[in-house]
């Protein structure tokens, strides 16, 4: 199994554990992540204005490259994943978008052909959580861990097609497969406030604290995320109440492939 892999900028700097643990775990689980050549920043925020095309070109480029190799594109960062799914959806459904993209660069004739999966979806679809459970070397016994989905992976539900946006299960299934105890809490699919952390600090703080309070109220000792921005927000506002880490860090730990760095 070989996938085209789009790591994204943050994963080579502040969120490098998210990336490193994912790569090590992939080797352990027997699939290959082949990094897209010369990838550029996905733009991080999907423009709500459908007329805006230039900020979406980087994603189209990576998608075209994966298509040429006949591969599924795998992402890891929730923000990148959101942008790729949205761009793919627009390329599939919006003729004028396709035409404009082509006017920028003739080689980018693209109509959404490349399947895009998040790393978590690769685990669900290609490995299977039952199989993952068998591969675990260090089960995370007794650890009460809450999944934090945030908003980007789930919504809009019909575009992201990740899981039930109001009552998702995939990350809980993942946590259970690693031998830990998944804690279901109500705010796991609400925004962490990350996008407002510069303009409106009090609001960003309220939102993040609400997520943590909900998780703690249900007995969570740790939280896992798939997004560097969520990770930053939750750590910043957790006041040490819960441990926050990337889901791939847990995965690597359970598979016994932790990076000693």
């Amino acid at each position, binding site marked *: 199994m070989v996938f085209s892999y789009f790591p994204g900028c943050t994963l080579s700097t502040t969120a490098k554990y998210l990336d490193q643990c994912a790569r090590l775990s992939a080797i352990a689980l027997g699939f290959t992540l082949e990094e897209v050549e010369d990838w550029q920043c996905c733009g991080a925020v999907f423009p709500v204005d459908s007329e805006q095309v230039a900020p979406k070109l980087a994603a189209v480029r990576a998608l075209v490259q994966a298509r040429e190799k006949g591969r599924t594109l795998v992402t890891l960062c929730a923000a990148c994943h959101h942008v790729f799914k949205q761009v793919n959806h627009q390329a599939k459904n919006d003729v004028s978008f396709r035409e404009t993209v082509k006017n920028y660069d003739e080689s980018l004739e693209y109509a959404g052909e490349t399947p895009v999966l998040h790393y978590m979806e690769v685990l669900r679809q290609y490995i299977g959580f039952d199989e993952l459970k068998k591969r675990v070397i260090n089960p995370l016994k007794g650890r009460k861990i809450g999944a934090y989905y945030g908003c980007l992976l789930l919504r809009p539900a019909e575009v992201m097609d990740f899981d*039930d*946006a*109001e*009552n998702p299960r995939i990350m809980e299934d993942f946590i259970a497969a690693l031998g830990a105890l998944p804690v*279901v*809490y*109500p*705010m796991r699919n*609400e925004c962490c406030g990350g996008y407002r952390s510069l303009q409106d600090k009090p609001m960003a703080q309220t939102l993040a604290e*609400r997520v943590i*309070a*909900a998780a703690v*109220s249900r007995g969570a000792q740790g939280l896992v995320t798939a997004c560097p921005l969520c990770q930053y927000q939750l750590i910043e506002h957790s006041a040490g109440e819960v441990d926050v880490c990337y889901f791939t860090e847990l995965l690597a730990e359970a598979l016994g492939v932790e990076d000693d760095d």
Partner: protein
Amino acid sequence: MRIGVFVCHCGSNIKATIDAEYIAAQVQQDAKVVHAAEYPYLCAEGGQQKIINAVREYQLTGVVICACSPRMHENTFRKTAAKAGLNPYQIEIANIREQCSWVHKNKDAATGKALKLAKAAIARVKLALPLFAGESAVTKRALVIGGGIAGIQTALDIAEAGFAVDLVESTPSIGGKMAQLDKTFPTLDCAACILTPKMVDAAAHEKITLHTYSEVEEVEGFVGNFTATIRKKARSVDMKKCTGCGACWEKCPSKRIPSEFDCGLANRTAIYTPFAQAVPNVPVIDRATCIKFKNGRCGLCADVCQPAAIDFTQEDAVFTQEYGVIIAATGYQVFSLDAYGEYAYHDSKNVITSLELERLMNAAGPTGGKLQRPSDGKAPKKITFIQCVGSRDITRGKPYCSKICCMYTAKHAIAIKEKYPEAEIEIFYIDVRTPGKGFDEFYRRAVEVYGVRYIKGQVGKIAEMNGILHMQAVDLLENKRFDTTADMVVLAAAIEPSPGAKPLAQMLATPMDTLRFFSEAHPKLRPVESATAGIFLSGVCHGPKDIPETVAQASAAACKAIGVLAKDKLITNPCVAKVNDKKCTGCGRCIDVCPYKAISLESNAAEANPALCQGCGGCASLCPSNAMDLNGFTHKQVLAEVDALCR
């Protein structure tokens, strides 16, 4: 043949797009058309008189009416023809309104099309033969399916008129949803106090036979002559011996089965009656949960039963019965909230539906009428209601308004404030809809007298943390997002047709709309009749309704049913299949295709029973030797019509 053609203006409905005068002039080119005229409203008395006069004056032997759809006024004009001394089947309708004047804008094109349609009808009427209606007998017995307030009222009204009624209910007791309710709006009288006497009346009425814990399995026949197959599920209790003493359910060790009647807020035993005032007051054994049926041990109920009424060997009893009319009264169920994860209905015990609140407020309910939170039994200080959960929601729910929620929520608010004046109540709504006698006054009382806080807006998320329900909400009038909390949240979940309605509609061969409500024959003029003759509609199976409206419709359906039952003979439709036995080879393919079992093989030729035939024409179009024809729609007539259209 002397044909008269009459062109209706239908006010401006036809005349605005079709040149009626031109059509009247053009049709007279046909040598057989001896008279043509136009008139503003042919269906009005003056119009009908004009036709009668013309028939007599010009000795017409055929009439063509260019007007609206035959579904609208074919019968009217047949009666007119009969008055004038013409055979009613020698009139033809050319529909120049619905698919012509109403849909076209270009007057020349529409007039051209209308003329063609008129000519086709003329070609048809030239070949029309006089037909004579037959008669069929009426079985003087009604079948009412569904034993809620709708079915009970319909059954009582028919029985009071002197006709026998079978009332079939799938659960162990009649009473339906109304039996679960606490109080009723807008008068706040208790539901049980006004319902149970009716339940008892229905059970005691000499003309009514109750079949509870029973299902209709098959229906055949037609108006006046239906045959239904009914399955009486094994109660495992002999109804004749049982005294309803209750010793059996007191002793039953299987006590932890969620009660359907209490919406799962309390438990019942394996042998049970759904509620104290159940009619009949005879328990059933739920075999799926009974220890005796699961592993053969136990049998305590039989040990304590003095009259020895328990019968573990009882089997389902299936019987058939003939009926003249059938009334569907299958009611509703509460819409599933699975698609509304943001309301935490499955996550928090303190988020409940309005029907569950009815049980919590009911003196006979699991809390004895004390309002307690399901999670910890504490009295809630602040209660939030959310309206339109699943109603008026085209993306995840139902497109329609469930109609009862605004009023029952006002009722709940008032009832809570009456019992607990200190309680704080907040209601999120999209619109408050209170059209009904005394309804708006009732709602105003909730606001003005009881101080209930109404907020135009919606809740986007409910999260239970440490026993408190935290909500993210929006107030549309103040245009602000805000957070609020409550001890308990009540969701006004949409109502939808019962799951049994769809298979029943198939059995009755009567149409439903896309939302699985039964369709009425005409949305304004025939609101309680189904499109199938002899099938009537009562209550919410036809669309959301409150109790007064349900009872009104139930009585209306009964009245229509009595109209059929009161007749000794029904006039049958003469437009039925007719076999030419010289041509018939006796292949029998028509027998297979006939949905009404009207055709049989008699001495090597098919024979169609005119009482059973509904004139669908399936056999006529299928017959390989052209031996089967349909009166009023003969092959010759249809081909002449097509020829005229193609000319």
